[in-house]
């Protein structure tokens, strides 16, 4: 089940379409921001890859960069899905941190 630590995932089914929404807690540091105390740049730290699977089939995948905001929000729809089935969202950032969240599709 969804562990809800850094990712909040929701999937709702309506009229043959599943709408997936996600909010991810992540700093998305660009590597361009200065630490005003030390004067040094804060190292880049951002999500590089994000992928959503339904029944072991990838329904959405994206490559992200530093242009994405901190704590990003993501929403998309895919055709199909079934109430009670699982949707899996996985992201990986440039520092090797990765997280997988699973949620059950619920009716809209």
């Amino acid at each position: 089940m969804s562990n809800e630590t850094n990712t909040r995932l929701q999937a709702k089914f309506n009229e043959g379409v599943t709408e997936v929404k996600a909010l991810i807690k992540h700093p998305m540091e660009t590597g361009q921001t200065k630490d005003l105390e030390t004067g040094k740049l804060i190292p880049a730290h951002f999500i590089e890859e994000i992928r959503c699977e339904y029944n072991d089939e990838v329904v959405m995948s994206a490559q992200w960069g530093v242009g994405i905001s901190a704590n990003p929000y993501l929403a998309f729809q895919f055709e199909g899905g079934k109430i009670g089935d699982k949707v899996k969202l996985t992201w990986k950032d440039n520092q090797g941190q990765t997280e997988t969240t699973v949620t059950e599709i619920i009716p809209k």
Partner: protein
Amino acid sequence: MRSPLKKHKWLVVILNLIIPTWGIATEISVTIPLDLDQPTYSVPWKRYSQWAQNDWSNYSHLRQEIARPVSFIQHVETPIKGNPDKGKKLIADRKKGNCAACHLLPAEKLPGNVGINISTIGTWQRTDEYLFNYIYDPRIYNPSTIMPPWGAHEVLTKAEIQDIVAYFKTLTQPVEFTDPLENPDKRPIPVEDRNNLDEMENPAMFAVKLGEKLYNQPGSMGKSCHDCHDNPQQTFVTWAVRMPKVEPRLNKVIGVEEFVTRHARATTGAEYLAQTEENLALAIYLRYLANGQVISIDKNDDNTRIALRRGEKLMDRKIGQLNLACNDCHHTSANKWLRGQYLGDFVGMLDHFPTYRTSRTEIWDIRKRFQWCNVSVRANELPPDAPEYGDLELYLTAANNGRTLSVPGIRH
């Protein structure tokens, strides 16, 4: 039916004079275990690394007044020989005059309306000496002004003020707005329509989950919050709307955040320093349990009233290089524009803290918001558990009595 107490109000007053009332009910009880020895932050206090590190110790702050009397009239050679082109740059420079932040001036994007419209100041028949000294230290002419003393507080040099005066003397045409959004008197008031408690919208909702987890997590003494307070939904249903409170052992007002740090140290052994993710998460969780309740600071005891009076005074304390008091912006100039920023009234500001700030991508509690205000007027901030902030928090929360708590907030 009229209560007999109301009918014989005079009798109550006389009885009160003879038998003093001991109003301690609204204070934090001395039986509640709290760590009373250590500050709630790591000593010495250090400003956040993402904030400008300037030291403003030459100017007053909320704890200490640094005497800087109103200036005498400065002699200036007239007619003033400044450079109007340089002056035009200075009035828009945020590090310098920044006149357009408050005043309506031509050719400036999104001018403010905290100050008067000075777009035709060149036709006002003011002497050069008057214009120069009004910018140097406006308190010479208007003791109740909120305008900063630009020269006396060393923001502008005398040469720069002469440039600005030279530019002002060229201003004769009133500003006409083609776009109503540019006009500060017509600009629509910003309304926050995001839902605080929408888990998909407010990233601070992650803190509620973390707070709940920490609540059930044992500290170094082997106990968790839950071991003593096993029904938080019931126990804390109104707790947070009565905070902050006077803490007689510490002789100051403490808020939810400081209470969490001190109470956890004394009971579970967990260390939740101010402004850490854990401290904010627990403070948010404890307020979350009281969401929907109205803020109800009880003002009926002597110590609370004393603290409220101190808070009221602090609201008028002029601080920083910009010499501004809380009330200057959030009362006198409330509901006006500081360039593109809308200055809110302090009623309505306290019901959603700690809040997620989209512009900073961080959760801020009210103490950090105070610190930000201090640094913005170029005054040194105090540590988060400062008694002065306690008095201010109490005063502002009491001013918000009757408003519904909705934590965590989400704001710009």
